[in-house]
């Protein structure tokens, strides 16, 4: 009764719909977590220091770039996405795509309202 096995032999589920491309149960080790942790702290220090150096237009670019990099390693390792299915990866990509669309398309209105002032 407790042996909830696969309900159907694989021959009955050729499209493997029940668990298509399921993410492997890869267990990320504490060592990897520690390395990511260190990297995050390092880049926090870098971003703070960079804020004190005058690089005119490059300042916000660097700050955002570092923030994106940190976010990416949190997503890939702390949130395991590197080892997840394509579906999860596509889901995240679509989320960021929508976010970027919101920003870019709305911004295009504001920029085009005052050409030259941006």
């Amino acid at each position, binding site marked *: 009764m*407790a*042996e*909830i*096995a*696969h*309900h*159907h*032999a*694989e021959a009955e589920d050729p499209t*493997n719909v*029940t*668990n298509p491309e*399921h*993410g*492997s*149960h890869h*267990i*990320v*080790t*504490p060592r990897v*977590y520690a390395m*990511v*942790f260190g990297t*995050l*702290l390092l880049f*926090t220090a870098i*971003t*703070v220091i960079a*804020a*004190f*150096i*005058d690089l005119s237009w490059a*300042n*916000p670019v660097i*700050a*955002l770039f*570092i*923030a994106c990099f*940190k*976010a990416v390693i*949190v997503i890939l*390792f*702390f*949130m*395991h996405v590197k080892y*997840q*299915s394509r579906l*999860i990866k596509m*889901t*995240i990509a*679509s*989320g*960021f795509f*929508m*976010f970027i669309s*919101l*920003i870019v398309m709305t*911004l295009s209105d*504001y920029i085009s309202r005052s050409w030259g002032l*941006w």
Partner: protein
Amino acid sequence: MDNTVATEHPHTHETAVHAEHTHVSLPQHRHHFETVEQQREAGSFGMWLFLLTEIMFFGGLFFAYLLYRNWYYDAFFTASNQLSIPLGTANTAILITSGFFMALAVWCAEVRKKDMLVWTLILTTVFGIAFLGIKYVEYHEKWEKHHIPGAHFDISEFVNPAAHGIKEKPLPPDMAQRTQVFFFLYFAMTGMHALHMIIGVGLLFWLIWRARRGDFSAGYVAPIENFGLYWHFVDIVWLFLFPLLYLINRHPLH
């Protein structure tokens, strides 16, 4: 109830031989899922979809920030310089540490180390509360200086910084008024973030209680995993808030 792990579990459905290879069967297996694996993946997918809604939710605030920072850049960077770098950096480091412990907690659940799981969850909570504590200190300071937007907002520090011992360029009065927009976005964005942290801390207490009972050290990892996703997301939001709000323009004048 058979709870044994099939240690040689092949993990590939294509090579599973017959329909009886023992799967982990958990008491938390819901009847409408065919397998525990399907349930775990569905739960994870559902949590990611919820995080997508959170991205879009914060997205509106980020856009407002982007717009007004460009319109009122002088007001924004002057006001931003009022925020404390040491406190902000400390908070960032604290939140990253909290995230690190959360990731470890997921590992503990996966390898079924109950005591360590409880400890990592507790540390996650402690650092989360520390973050909120520092936030409170910062908010309190803003309250004292009358920098909370609204009827009592005080622009004197921006119009006449020298008189307050602040090494900044003075702003004309109407631009000084725009510092309210910065502070509104500061409170709205960090406040919304803090609200999510408070909810997270509340959930952590519940998870710690359940973890101590052994709920998550017998193979049922999903709640820890999915809460971890939520917690890391909240961390990521802060990773963006910190440079955008605190680090706009710190080069001398000072």
